[in-house]
């Protein structure tokens, strides 16, 4: 009778959905409805993998999730209905659901979620998982001989769309009293970048999707902020960070793009030492590539609808490491990890520091792991090793863990069935999930 398990990682930015047991989710869609300027209706965004040219210019966005938590069940119902019927092609009544929920969801939100799952969609069973334990499960199964699976504990640093959590996991259970949260995620970073670019060059305050793309393609984490600021002040070729992003014009390009990808990659030549000496080799490389392109680059910006970025590229991700710079009264990511570990039993500290797992879309910034390691090392006692693992695909990490859990033989026993929900109600069913 029991057929399939739908695994749904319901993130604030992206929904990752698919069937349990598979390696990758079959669909990834933005968790929102959007309304382009040309339309009066709210539309469902197409999956991120397809590249049909939907016009997202100045689109207004409605998201069912605010600060990581589901606050608009009606909107979520619309999105899920579209997802289940036209993308996943499943019938909820004959499947069970593994749903991720952020840590510390308040009871009213949990109740709304349960109502959505059982009363609106009639799923036959539900299991609610939290993302750190799923990531831990996945990493432990991937490396059966690694320390994560041997010690059965890890610190999962989930830097997602709405917020950042550092949560220790012990024997597949998230230690909830030790989890620490920074209220900064990819959404705040995109908005910050929007603000900077809008003030300094072009008004892009309405271009959420465009700026997401800019952030993903051009932002990186600086390893030495004062040095990089000095380099960013230079003119011409010496400024390794300056690069140009071309806005879509709606005729030739429906999507924005980086004008000269080689130029955008130049920061990678910066090594740990001081100022780079090998700028000359770069110049040669540029000259070899295209000569007419350089003249192109010097033409007036205003007619071409493009903008330049230099220090914004690393000052934006910098905020995760120093939220105080924004005026937030919160500690940075390294300190967040240390506090999460310190809330655990001292016997766990050495092994926790040795198994830090990075997940979530915002960890995709180049050099993110390196920077955390550098900031963490001085804060961690000398005798402990610090080992940071980046997931190979941080956006899908949680979903893969869910898929693994859904295919395990015990899964059915862990679920709450629809009959139980109708008998006991939301609050008592929730006790089964221990969080």
């Amino acid at each position: 009778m029991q057929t399939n398990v739908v695994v749904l990682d319901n993130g604030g930015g992206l929904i990752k959905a698919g069937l349990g047991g598979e390696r990758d989710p079959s669909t990834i869609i933005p968790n929102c409805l959007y309304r382009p300027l040309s339309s009066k209706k709210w539309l469902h965004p197409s999956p991120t993998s397809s590249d049909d040219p939907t016009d997202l210019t100045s689109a207004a966005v409605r998201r069912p999730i605010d600060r990581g938590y589901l606050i608009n069940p009606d909107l979520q119902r619309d999105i899920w209905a579209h997802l289940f019927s036209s993308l996943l092609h499943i019938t909820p009544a004959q499947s069970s659901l593994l749903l991720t929920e952020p840590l510390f969801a308040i009871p009213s939100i949990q109740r709304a979620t349960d109502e959505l799952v059982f009363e609106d969609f009639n799923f036959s069973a539900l299991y609610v998982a939290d993302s750190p334990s799923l990531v831990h499960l996945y990493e432990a199964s991937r490396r059966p001989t690694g320390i994560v699976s041997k010690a059965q504990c890890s610190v999962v640093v989930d830097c997602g769309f709405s917020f950042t959590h550092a949560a220790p996991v012990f024997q597949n259970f998230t230690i909830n009293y030790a989890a620490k949260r920074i209220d900064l995620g990819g959404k705040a970073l995109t908005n910050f970048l929007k603000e900077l670019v809008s003030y300094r060059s072009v008004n892009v305050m309405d271009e959420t999707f465009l700026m997401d793309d800019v952030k993903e393609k051009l932002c990186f984490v600086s390893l030495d902020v004062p040095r990089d600021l000095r380099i960013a002040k230079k003119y011409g070729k010496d400024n390794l960070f300056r690069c140009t992003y071309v806005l879509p014009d709606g005729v030739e390009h429906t999507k924005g793009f980086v004008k000269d990808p080689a130029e955008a990659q130049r920061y990678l030549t910066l090594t740990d030492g001081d100022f780079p000496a090998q700028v000359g080799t770069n110049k040669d490389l540029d000259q070899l590539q295209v000569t007419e392109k350089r003249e192109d680059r010097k033409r007036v910006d205003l007619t071409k609808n493009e903008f330049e970025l230099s220090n914004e590229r690393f000052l934006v991700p910098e905020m995760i490491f120093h939220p105080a710079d924004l005026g937030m009264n919160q500690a940075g990511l390294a300190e967040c990890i240390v506090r999460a570990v310190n809330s655990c039993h001292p016997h766990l500290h050495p092994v926790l520091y040795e198994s830090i797992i990075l997940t979530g879309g915002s960890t995709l910034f180049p050099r993110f792991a390196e920077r955390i390691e550098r900031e963490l090392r001085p804060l961690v006692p000398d005798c402990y090793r610090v080992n940071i693992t980046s997931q190979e695909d941080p956006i899908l990490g949680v979903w893969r863990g869910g898929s693994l859990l859904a295919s395990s033989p015990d899964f059915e026993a862990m679920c709450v069935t629809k009959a139980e929900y109708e008998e006991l109600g939301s609050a008592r069913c929730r006790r089964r999930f221990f969080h």
Partner: protein
Amino acid sequence: MEEDTSSPIRRVSSRTRKVASKMAAALASSDNRAQAALARLEALENDNAGMEMQETNEDDEASLDDDDQVYMQKKMSKSMKRKTRQAKALENARKAPRTFIELLHEANLESLPPHVPSYLKAAVGPPSSTSRRHFCTVCGSAANYTCIRCGIRFCSCRCQNIHNDTRCLKFVA
């Protein structure tokens, strides 16, 4: 001797009173600044500014543009007959999604016993060092100067001029 010194001190104190009135004004303005800073942090979680307003506007337009305007009006009047304005407003208020902050207030997490982990206790808390780096709001490099009118940071004369021309007092006043 002591009486002599006391009188200038009194004069000094009168001067500090003058400063104090200025200080009071400065405090008021810094309160403004704090509010502005909070508002800017809030804005970082915005989805798309002014979206709701647009929506109502466009809905009006849609109903006017439509060919079946008469039909729409009929429909409207029908529904109006059934529901009083108050009931409708109540229903709208119930339907409108509440923000997470409102839900959080409603959940009353402060009343939980101290050992129960909750959303509020999971916040990472203030940083151990209070030092805050300042970046020039105009160009982004390290900012050593503060605007005397609105408190925004800048790094050089050039950036100060740009700041004064473009958005001095924009967030505060």
